[in-house]
């Protein structure tokens, strides 16, 4: 019985973890092409473990930009993981020292899978399975991409660049397509967030557009308090 209620969470977690994790090839290749060593690329995947920030730093190294400013930009991209943590803290029952390993897994994909689960038990399972499979795949493929660089195929050839957006869309879908005031409010927040991020893209450093999307939540909250 327990297996049947948890197996969708395991399936979703493995699917997202492995599919998104394969993009580590792109990071490994991009990092080495940018001028990072294979060791530096692997350290980022092992210890930063948040794709957008890693790509951002590689981009600055490639462009010969100011590394301190580049590091700040990469950290800006990581701020949203802190916001996810606010939501996941209770769901994961993250107390005491157990927070330390769990925290490392708080990223876009794990948050998406966790929030899609119907109950707390599946949410925890979904988080752990996504974290484990994504972490292993991402780090293995980072190494492969860094070592192979030009010999490894570009993941875009396999359409893997659309897996991230498709994952987030599939996760949000049931919440957005419901009826009633709650779903209408969520649709406004989603549309507002997407519009703000696109509008801000040409004018702000990487990472800022997605953070600014949080303003969409504030406007809805202020319009109709709690």
């Amino acid at each position, binding site marked *: 019985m327990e297996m049947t209620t948890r197996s969708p969470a395991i399936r979703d977690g493995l699917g997202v973890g492995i599919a998104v994790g394969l993009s580590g090839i792109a990071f490994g290749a991009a990092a080495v092409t940018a001028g990072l060593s294979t060791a530096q690329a692997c*350290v980022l995947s092992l210890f930063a473990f948040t794709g957008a920030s890693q790509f951002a730093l590689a981009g600055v190294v490639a462009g010969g930009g100011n590394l301190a400013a580049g590091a700040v930009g990469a950290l800006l991209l990581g701020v*949203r993981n802190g*916001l996810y943590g606010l939501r996941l803290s209770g769901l994961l029952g993250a107390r005491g020292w157990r927070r330390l390993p769990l925290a490392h897994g708080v990223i876009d994909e794990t948050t998406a899978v966790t929030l899609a689960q119907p109950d707390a038990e599946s949410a925890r399972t979904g988080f752990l399975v996504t974290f484990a499979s994504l972490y292993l795949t991402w780090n293995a493929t980072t190494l492969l991409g860094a070592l192979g660089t030009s010999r490894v195929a570009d993941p875009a050839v396999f359409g893997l660049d659309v897996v991230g957006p*498709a994952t987030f869309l599939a996760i949000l879908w049931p919440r957005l397509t419901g009826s009633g005031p709650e779903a209408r409010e969520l649709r406004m927040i989603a549309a507002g967030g997407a*519009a703000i991020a696109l509008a801000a893209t040409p004018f702000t450093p990487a990472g800022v557009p997605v953070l600014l*999307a949080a303003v969409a939540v504030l406007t809805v909250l202020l319009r109709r308090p709690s």
Partner: protein
Amino acid sequence: MSVWQAVAAVSLGCYALKLAGLSAPRRVLDHPGVQRFAALVPVALLAALIAVQTFTGDRALELDWPRTAGLGAAVVALLLRAPFLVVLVAAAAVTALLRQAGL
């Protein structure tokens, strides 16, 4: 700043940011306003990520037809109530096939 220093700063900082969210004190997390904000904020951020990862490239708006069509395939699959993994495979397959076709 050397590359290694930047790598270390980003690694430590990214972990600290993740830990900070999980470690927010109960008093803060139990505040109704914070709870509502925390419940709604992933919706805004994930929607923004869909838009940014699909329609921008190198900090400018960009319409990549294979990627856009792949996301369209995901929408169709979702409308047909396809299972989650089928949605991902459909999106990636459409994008890959259109790239293969040289679009």
